[in-house]
């Protein structure tokens, strides 16, 4: 005998938590790119959100080339209903497999062409260049997909994976978001913590001169860091496009701002900080729209950011271990 659970306060709260964590995990994935780059070269890569955006358009282009409808191509298209579960999963995997190296290569290229020549220049020069690159990429996106929101094929359904009598919804989309973001975050953490290259990245971030004296090619390590951050943004773009169902050339700006805030909130330069910050922002956004009002979410998120920074200027996890002199 089963009871139909009444939608109580707690089930509603749990629902907001699920949705908030899913959105937060996505923001965290983008935030990692900001925080890794900042950690190693102390630069806010404003173009990062736009690299993310281009990943979305690449994924859509890949799907259109595979025969799906999109980007204004609607002749002789494969119907989504004709595709089995495995075919859809294969297409998603293909998108990830192409968007990740694509965005990684763009981010690496930006560093190589724009930031690297400015490595010893005053801070403001690379910062302004980053804003410039952001605009250039946004225009590439505008050229690629047009000014309107563009539909992205609905390869993942909104079907509820939980039994109906729980009163909760964990959709296939939610599962897809967690299924892509969580393994990537774990893989990144393990990579940075345990591999030789990961340790070299941390060493370079903590003291680049000493790192070079150890035989570490810091320019190469920095380039790889940009590539990894870009690749994570590429994966994030695919997840975002599948989850939201539309992409546009401005999506990099909006989500980039959330992700950048998440990175600062958690303690910029710290990988666990970006994850924590992302999850907090996701939760605040969903709790905020449920209990305070949709139109207040932005004010809430940035209000919390300011309050936290007043009391912990280095962010939640950013406790600077001072070097003894």
């Amino acid at each position, binding site marked *: 005998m089963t009871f139909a659970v009444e939608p109580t306060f707690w089930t509603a709260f749990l629902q907001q938590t699920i949705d908030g964590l899913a959105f937060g995990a996505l923001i965290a994935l983008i935030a990692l790119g900001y925080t890794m780059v900042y950690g190693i070269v102390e630069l806010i890569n404003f173009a990062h959100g736009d690299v993310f955006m281009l990943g979305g358009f690449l994924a859509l282009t890949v799907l259109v080339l595979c025969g799906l409808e999109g980007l204004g191509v609607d002749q002789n298209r494969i119907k989504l209903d004709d595709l089995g579960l495995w075919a859809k999963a294969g297409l998603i995997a293909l998108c990830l497999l192409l968007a990740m190296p694509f965005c990684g290569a763009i981010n690496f290229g930006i560093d190589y062409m724009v930031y690297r020549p400015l490595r010893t220049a005053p801070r403001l020069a690379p910062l302004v260049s980053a804003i410039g690159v952001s605009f250039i990429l946004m225009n590439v996106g505008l050229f690629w997909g047009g000014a309107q929101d563009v539909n992205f094929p609905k390869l993942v359904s909104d079907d509820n994976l939980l039994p109906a009598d729980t009163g909760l919804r964990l959709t296939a989309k939610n599962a897809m978001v967690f299924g892509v973001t969580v393994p990537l975050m774990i893989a990144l953490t393990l990579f940075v913590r345990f591999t030789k290259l990961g340790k070299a990245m941390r060493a370079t971030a903590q003291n680049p001169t000493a*790192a070079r004296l*150890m035989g*570490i090619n810091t320019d190469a390590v920095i380039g790889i860091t940009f590539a990894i951050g870009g690749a994570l943004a590429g994966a994030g773009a695919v997840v975002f496009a599948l989850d939201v169902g539309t992409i546009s050339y401005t999506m990099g700006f909006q989500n980039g701002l959330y992700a950048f805030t998440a990175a600062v909130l958690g303690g910029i330069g710290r990988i666990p900080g970006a994850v924590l910050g992302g999850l907090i922002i996701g939760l605040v956004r969903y709790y905020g729209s449920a209990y305070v009002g949709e139109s207040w979410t932005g004010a809430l998120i940035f209000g919390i950011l300011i309050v936290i920074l007043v009391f912990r200027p280095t962010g939640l996890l950013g406790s600077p271990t001072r070097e003894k002199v």
Partner: protein
Amino acid sequence: MPPLLEVTALRSGYGPIDVLHDIGLSVDAGEIVTMIGANGAGKTTTLLTVSGAVRVRGGRVAFDGHDLTRTPAHKVVSLGMAQSPEGRKIFPRLTVLENLQMGAFTRTDKPAIADDLEKMFGLFPILKERKGQAGGLLSGGQQQMLAIARALMSRPKLLLLDEPSLGLAPQIVTQIFDIIRDLNAKQGMSVLLVEQNARLALKVAHRGYVLETGRVTLADKASVLLNDPRIRAAYLGE
């Protein structure tokens, strides 16, 4: 036989300023050579330029049959030159063990690296005790030991040591210098030592150079410099 390290008419500096005007020095295989001089004489800059961290503006650096004049810092280590830099520059949020592993970054011979790690723990037992701690949490003396051990992890033919005694208690300084002398005597490792404590440095070294405002002004056997009245007056506080 040509010297292990030969520096000729070296000129380098930062921004618009030349710090080194004319540095000439050499280190033979198996030798401990020291550079002494006042603050700002260019001792640290000489070490950083020799190991490629600061760009050479003029002159030449030759090491073990290689011309290092245009070689970037990260390629110097695998040729057999390691540096324990001024101010130690350990990686504060890497563990002691990870700091040591970074010292062996250019090496791929895993069993031998593990061997050397044990040797370092033998030389500096405190590092073994603290191997899981963040480097930034060590005391100054322990950080200095870590910086030296980290440099030794690359199995250098030549060790560049910058101010190993800076800010350390006298008994730790003695301990560190005993280890340096030992590595030189037993393993034939060459050392180029920069030291504020000129007396100590000249006692350990075979030969010495005196630097003044970016130029070598005096070069001789360490025992001769130790008894030179000018040196005694200017650097030994007599």
